[in-house]
């Protein structure tokens, strides 16, 4: 009996040490679903021996909510859009990065090192960057759209067959650009004008859609949608009649970035993960599979030219991209924006 008890105690103790040891080597990554090639984590573990677990979030706001509620505990690397990376930094929830642990930053375009939201990449590393524009069925729209107004005040052909992005920052982008305002405006009157316009537009929409708009284009349910360039590509891949264009009023420059949480207990492993992503062949593989531009010159230079032809957004140069205003954290104006977007989406 005594012996049995002892054996059980040893077994329990061993089990504890075993979990402790593996926990030490395990990082938790939160990313949008399907925003990384599925094999990436397995390959990373195979090479580095570091266990990596993926947790998914549907929106920036969702992961912000989780991280601000828990102080970031339980997460090591977060994939968020740059305004949210900025907010995490201001809240003290993002760790300062040690560039000596991320030597592959040498592969980046010089422009990518000096992004307005984080010059010198002190707390965030861009994962992908791009534009927001008009994605449409060139075979069915009649005249091809060139302006945000083609979406905001649709003609009879496309009326009721348009979608807009539901995430609040991008929901506002078309209206602000068409009115000639900054996409980061904190001014109440400008936000109010954009709101009025968007409430009118809402009556002509098929739906707000962040995730399946390209399949609505493929099925013909939608003819013209507001889209992030890479997501339009998923439509183009299925139907070459789908095209992407940047509206003449411009686009935002968005950057999705990786942030290491300040609460992470495995910062070295987290930075090793970022460094792994930045390898030319890994980051290129991201571009080839997710069809977003990546800020990694070494990766982009190796892309198949046929891919650039099929997906023209991939050919936009960093210099062209940086002409657009980057989406920034709104700070105090966020309250006004949140309330405004609630008012738009709630107007029945």
């Amino acid at each position, binding site marked *: 009996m005594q012996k049995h008890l002892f054996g059980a105690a040893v077994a329990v103790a061993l089990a504890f040490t075993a979990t402790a040891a593996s926990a030490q080597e395990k990082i938790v990554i939160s990313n949008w679903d399907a925003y990384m090639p599925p094999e990436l984590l397995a390959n990373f573990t195979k090479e580095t021996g570091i266990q990596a677990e993926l947790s998914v979030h549907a929106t920036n706001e969702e992961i912000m909510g989780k991280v601000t509620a828990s102080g970031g505990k339980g997460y090591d690397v977060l994939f968020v859009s740059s305004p949210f990376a900025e907010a995490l930094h201001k809240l003290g929830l993002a760790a300062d990065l040690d560039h000596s642990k991320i030597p592959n930053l040498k592969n980046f375009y010089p422009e990518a090192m000096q992004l307005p939201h984080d010059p010198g990449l002190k707390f965030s590393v861009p994962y992908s960057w791009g534009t927001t524009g008009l994605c449409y069925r060139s075979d069915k729209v009649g005249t091809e759209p060139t302006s945000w107004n083609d979406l905001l005040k649709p003609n009879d052909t496309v009326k009721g067959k348009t979608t807009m992005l539901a995430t609040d920052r991008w929901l506002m982008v078309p209206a602000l650009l068409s009115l000639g305002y900054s996409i980061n405006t904190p001014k109440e009157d400008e936000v109010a004008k954009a709101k009025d316009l968007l409430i009118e537009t809402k009556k002509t929409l098929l739906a707000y859609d962040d995730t399946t708009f390209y399949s609505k284009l493929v*099925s013909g*349910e939608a003819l013209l949608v507001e889209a992030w360039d890479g997501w339009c590509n998923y439509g183009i891949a299925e139907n070459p009649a789908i095209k992407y264009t940047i509206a003449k009023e411009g686009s935002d420059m968005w950057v999705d970035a990786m942030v290491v949480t300040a609460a992470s207990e495995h910062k070295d492993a987290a930075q090793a993960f970022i460094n792994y992503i930045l390898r030319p062949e890994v980051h290129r593989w991201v571009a080839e599979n997710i069809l977003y531009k990546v800020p990694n010159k070494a990766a982009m230079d190796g892309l198949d030219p046929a891919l650039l032809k099929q997906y023209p957004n991939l050919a936009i140069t960093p210099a062209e991209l940086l002409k657009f205003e980057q989406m920034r954290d709104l700070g105090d104006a966020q309250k006004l924006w949140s309330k405004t977007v609630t008012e738009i989406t709630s107007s*029945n």
Partner: protein
Amino acid sequence: MMPSRRLLLLGPGLAWLTALLILPCALIFVLGFFERGVYGGIDYTFTTENFARAVDPLYAGIFLYSARIALTAVVFSLLIGYPAAYCIAKQPKRRQMPLLILVMMPFWSNYLIRTYAWIVLLNREGLINSAFANLGIIAEPLPLLYNDFAIVVGLVYGYVPFMILALYSSISKLGPELNEASTDLGADGLRTFLRITLPLTLPGIAAGSVFVFVLSIGNFVTPDLLGGGKRTMLGNLIYDQFLTARDWPFGATLAFLLVALMMLLLTLQAVFVHRAGGNQEARA
């Protein structure tokens, strides 16, 4: 001896209710009196602004709209559920259980997946539209999806089993004696139904209706998927405050108001059932 023993028996239930229902509701209520922080946290500054904002015409409109949709769902659930429940209750006993299991069968798969299935059925190129188009009934696809119609269809589909179960338990309690007596006294089938069966099953109707109403008004998946995110119901509004706008205090205010409404309805329903029960006993 007796009171302490009663307390002992009640204890676990009361502790459960206190920890998991009363305390959270109290927390939600209190949270409604604070301000939203710049980054979505909570600023512990006292304010009644959230409650004032909740009665703003915009939000009051969402409330009324949600109530209207939920009420429509109740009416259709009742119209579909009553005959079904009546039919099941009048079957021989051995057949009732398999039929009830069939009613519950949809719960074997996830609500989200079942809601997605309606998108496949209702969209412009979906099964219903293509079938109608192939039969030459319609030239242009019908707008079946991303509107109120789709939301009501989704809600009725999802919650009709609750209605059927509530009605079944009420109808199956009726013996054949009253019907026979009514017929013997010369009433036809319709009159018997309207004067005997319907009044006696009112508690079941009330229970089923409150279930469907309460589940519908707080639902956010169906308006999001079948309404195309364009139609905001109370559930979506609360969801958005917590997960999109990150305005927890305002979300808490709305959630508290919804809980208060549900409690009111459930209490009214309980009082009603109690009264109806009392009347029946008095008559007997």
